[in-house]
Structure formats: structure tokens, C-alpha cells
């Protein structure tokens, strides 16, 4: 018989509601799984055993009282840059090693409102900056399919936890691919919603115009259930969309006959691995077999997205991270006598190399004499990239691309050269630049490692993306593959 930690959210939820299992049993099973494999995976920065067990007991009481929701009693992991009241939130940075939030992020409040269970906080690249979790100030995470390889990043701890069964699902964040790329590399489902669909209140800011919270799950139904729970207007986030609530599971199971899917040639880059290309092309064939109409499209501005992103994201990061001054919270260097010296030493010691690199890059791009050449130019290119997407979405309903041009790479393989690491996100960053929704679904294997297929849609097309991904998943079963660990 399968262990409880192996259940999907929808399976576990049904059994909880029928009182066949208790949340306490389920949570204990997940915690036992963590104990079993965490030494090899290192997906967590904090594990909250006591509060998880207390939440599980409350969830069981709720269900007994007939007040259960779809996520009641479900053990989840939260990425460690999402504020959790009373649970330290480090952003995988020395700067926030001892920081304990005094409030919950809106998404955490929503999950706790449904009496979900928080198992702990997910490892990540420091402040979300990276594609492998090797930029965590504490330790890298390991890919459950091959522990010598990275799980991707920045939500690498989240993807590794979901793939290895250390949580039924996780909440991550995506600024340039940080949900979708690790989901692809670990063989799980990851969704970056439309900018503004999920509240960013309590998400520690990296690049505010690009950041978005979203779920990582084992299958598409779970993804829809998680989105149901976290989406919705929040007056505490000025960029939150005043959208009416909707049930993203409602259209799952509907067919995709006649759906127009565009395949942008620019996303099949010369540098991509052949096995990845083959897996994604086979995925497209499957979608065609399900009745979708496949047509080639062109997004000529794709090749400018990387440069555009690496001006805009570091610029916003340099402004957002100015708050770490060693006065209000976080690491504070006490050696220096004067105010500026203390601030400079605090930031020099508290931030890791990639964070310093991006703050420096952003400060450069925003500095006097360079602003127009870099930041303003990038914002104008952002307009052109957005118009490119608008144009193709007049012809097609969604786009199908690879999520990452490569499968999971060995730890240490790309740490020496920042530009090589940045190139990993070439298929995911344009989506954040344009504020669109996109998801990664498992579509096979190359060299024994999972490959992800990305679906990109126009603004607020999450329901259509999920319906397409569900139809694909039901036809292939890739989502049922599990690492041997």
C-alpha cells in the first residue's frame, strides 16, 4: 500500500473528508518522509514539526465539525521568502538569518484560513536570485532524480520537496522562471500566474514589477486547487487585480479540440539539448493528437528578453534591497563606529556574491549618465516584447515551448560564469517581462532526467492553461513518474 506522503492533494483531501485518514497521520507521514530523505535533498531551511502537528490536529477538528476545505489538513512547504508569522524567514540570506516576521503574507493567511498544514520553509537562491539554489547562503538543495545535480532555482527547495515527497505541494515565487524552471528540472507541475492575480503582500521583494507567487504540485488538479486557494484580490497589494473568484478545477477534463496552439521557433534555441527538443516536440504532437491546432508563430523580440530582464530585474533589486541597512531588522555589523561605515559593512557581509552582483549591476544601470542608455531603453524594449505577445495572441490561444533548454545540470557546473547561469532562464523570462501566466508540465525524460513543457497564455488565461495541461497529463501520465529516492 502506498504511503500517505505519496498522495496527491486531491486524493488526500477526499480521504480526509471521508475521515478514512486523519491530517495528523498524513502530516506525520510527511514528516517521516522528510526525516528519511532530507539529508540527501536538503529542500528545507526550517522544519516546523511542533506547529505542523498542532495545525494537523486543528484541521482534524475542522473536518470533524464538517468545516473542511480542499486544502484542510494538507501538508505544504512555503518558500522562505514568503513571510510566516513567528517562523523565521531568511530568504536564504545571512542578512535575514535571524529574522522572524510579525505578520503573515496574504497567501499564508489564505492557506491557514483553509487549515492547511505548514511543514516548513523551502530552500532557494538568496532573495530569489539564481537558477540552481547554489546561491543559498546555507546549503544547496539536490535534485531527487540525481542528487549530484541541481533542482533548479530559485524555488529549488520547493520543487525538490514536492518531487521527493517531502511535501504534498509547495508555494514558490517566480521573477524570471523561479517556479517553472525548477518544476521542469524536478519533474513536477509549476504555475506562474498572471501578474496581479496572487497577492504579493508579505513576499519579500526582489523585482516588484516581475515577482509573482504560485504553486508547485505533483499534478495539474493539485495546481488548480492551490491556485483556487491563493488567487484573489488583496487591498494590501496595490497591484492586485480586482478579479472575481473563480474555480480553476471547473474546466479540467474538458477537451481541447480546436484550441489554437502556437509554437514560437525562437524558443527552440541552437544551444538547447537534443533530448529536451525531442521531448517537447513529442509533447506538441500529443497535444495535436488531442485535437489542438498547432501552428508555427514568431516572436522576434525573444532574443532581446535576456538583456531587457537583466537590466530591469537588477535595477528593481538595487532599489528594493536598499532597505537592508542593519537598523530595523536583519544582520547588523557592529564593528564600525560611524553610520555609513556600519551600513556598508552590514551590506558587504550580509549579502552573498550574486546578490551583490545584481545590486551593483542595477545601481550602475540606474546611475546618472547611464539611466537612459540602460534602464529607459530596457523599459522601451519591454513594451516591444509585450506587443510581440499581444500580436501572436490575436492568432493563437496559447503558446507551447520548452521550459528550460537543458535538463538538471551537475552541482558546481555553472557557478563560475554568471552569464551561463542567466541563459538557463531564456525561455521563461519573457513571460515575466510581459506579466503573462505560464506553467510547466512534465513531458518526458532526457538522459534519465525530467523535461518540462511550458504553456504560455494571454493575461488571466489560467483556466485555459490548466485545462490544456490536464488534457495533456491525462494522455501521457508523465506526472506519475517518481524518482527512486
Amino acid at each position: 500500500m502506498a504511503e500517505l506522503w505519496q498522495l496527491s492533494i486531491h486524493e488526500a483531501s477526499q480521504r480526509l473528508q471521508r475521515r478514512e485518514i486523519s491530517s495528523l497521520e498524513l502530516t506525520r507521514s510527511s514528516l517521516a518522509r522528510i526525516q528519511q530523505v532530507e539529508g540527501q535533498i536538503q529542500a528545507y531551511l526550517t522544519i516546523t514539526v511542533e506547529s505542523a502537528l498542532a495545525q494537523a490536529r486543528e484541521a482534524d477538528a475542522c473536518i470533524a465539525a464538517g468545516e473542511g476545505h480542499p486544502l484542510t489538513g494538507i501538508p505544504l512547504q512555503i518558500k522562505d521568502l514568503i513571510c510566516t508569522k513567528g517562523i523565521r524567514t531568511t530568504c536564504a540570506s545571512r542578512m535575514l538569518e535571524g529574522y522572524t516576521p510579525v505578520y503573515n503574507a496574504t497567501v499564508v493567511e489564505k492557506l491557514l484560513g483553509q487549515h492547511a498544514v505548514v511543514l516548513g520553509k523551502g530552500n532557494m537562491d538568496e532573495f530569489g536570485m539564481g537558477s540552481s539554489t547554489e546561491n543559498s547562503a546555507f546549503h544547496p538543495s539536490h535534485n531527487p532524480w540525481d542528487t549530484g545535480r541541481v533542482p533548479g532555482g530559485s524555488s529549488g527547495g520547493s520543487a525538490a520537496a514536492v518531487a521527493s515527497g517531502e511535501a504534498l505541494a509547495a508555494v514558490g515565487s517566480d521573477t524570471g522562471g523561479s517556479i517553472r524552471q525548477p518544476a521542469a528540472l524536478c519533474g513536477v507541475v509549476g504555475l506562474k500566474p498572471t501578474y496581479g492575480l496572487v497577492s504579493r503582500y508579505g513576499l519579500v521583494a526582489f523585482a516588484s514589477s516581475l515577482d509573482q507567487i504560485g504553486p508547485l504540485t505533483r499534478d495539474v488538479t493539485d495546481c488548480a486547487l492551490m491556485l483556487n486557494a491563493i488567487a484573489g484580490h488583496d487591498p494590501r497589494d496595490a497591484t492586485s487585480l480586482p478579479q472575481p473568484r473563480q474555480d480553476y478545477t471547473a474546466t479540467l477534463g474538458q477537451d481541447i479540440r480546436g484550441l489554437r496552439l502556437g509554437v514560437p521557433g525562437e524558443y527552440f534555441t541552437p544551444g538547447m539539448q537534443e533530448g529536451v527538443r525531442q521531448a517537447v516536440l513529442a509533447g506538441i504532437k500529443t497535444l495535436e493528437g488531442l485535437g489542438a491546432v498547432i501552428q508555427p508563430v514568431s516572436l522576434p523580440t525573444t532574443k532581446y528578453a535576456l538583456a531587457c530582464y537583466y537590466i530591469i530585474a537588477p535595477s528593481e533589486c538595487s532599489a528594493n534591497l536598499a532597505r537592508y541597512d542593519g537598523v530595523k531588522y536583519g544582520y547588523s555589523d557592529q564593528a564600525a563606529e560611524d553610520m555609513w561605515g556600519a551600513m556598508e559593512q552590514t551590506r558587504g557581509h550580509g549579502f552573498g556574491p550574486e546578490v551583490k552582483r545584481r545590486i551593483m549591476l542595477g545601481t550602475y544601470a540606474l546611475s546618472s549618465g547611464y539611466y537612459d542608455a540602460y534602464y529607459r531603453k530596457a523599459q522601451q524594449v519591454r513594451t516591444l516584447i509585450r506587443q510581440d505577445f499581444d500580436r501572436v495572441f490575436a492568432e493563437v490561444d496559447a503558446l507551447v515551448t520548452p521550459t528550460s533548454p537543458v535538463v538538471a545540470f551537475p552541482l558546481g557546473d555553472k557557478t563560475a560564469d554568471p552569464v551561463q547561469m542567466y541563459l538557463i532562464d531564456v525561455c521563461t523570462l519573457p513571460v515575466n517581462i510581459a506579466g503573462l501566466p505560464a506553467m510547466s508540465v512534465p513531458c518526458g525524460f532526457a538522459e534519465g532526467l525530467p523535461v518540462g513543457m511550458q504553456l504560455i497564455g494571454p493575461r488571466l488565461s489560467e483556466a485555459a492553461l490548466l485545462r490544456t495541461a490536464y488534457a495533456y497529463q491525462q494522455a501521457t501520465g508523465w506526472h506519475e513518474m517518481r524518482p527512486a529516492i
Partner: protein
Amino acid sequence: MALEPSEVQHIAALARIALTGEEQAALGQQLAQILAQFEILGELDTTDVLPTAHAGDLAPDLSVLRDDTPSPGLTTEDVLSNAPRREGQFFRVRAVLEE
């Protein structure tokens, strides 16, 4: 190609980050390498193209301000609970005004 050491120092001073000599040398190289990647944007004619500041620009319904109604906020103790240095109800800072 690398940025001039004086340029790296200038940016570090603007960003208020103390860097070791080793870090300055590495960043001088790396920033120049990354900036070289940005030259590709010069291929695009952006005369008369309006800048997009954030995805909210794409939707007129974004950036809605909430009503200004009073509600309970964090307590002083909450706000000070993570302070590296405090004195009573205040954050303790080093002298801001120099003699």
C-alpha cells in the same frame, strides 16, 4: 575588458556596499561581461516607443488605491522585535549628524 576600479568603487559607494579588493576586481570583470550582453538592445529602434514600467501598465485596472480607513496596525513591540539595537521604544542608530 573590465570596468575601471574607480568606477566599481563609485557604484559600490552608491549602493552602500563595502567590497574587498578581491570582490572589486571580480566585479569589474563580471559587470563588464554582463554589460557587453546588453549591447544587443542597440539593434532595436525605440524612438517614440513608450516605456513599460511594470506589467500593471498593461492593464488600466491595476494600481488601484485602497480606501484610507483606520485599522489596527503592528504594535511597537512587534515593530521593534527584530531590531538589532534598540533603546526603549526606539531603534538605536549611530550618530547621523557629524560634529
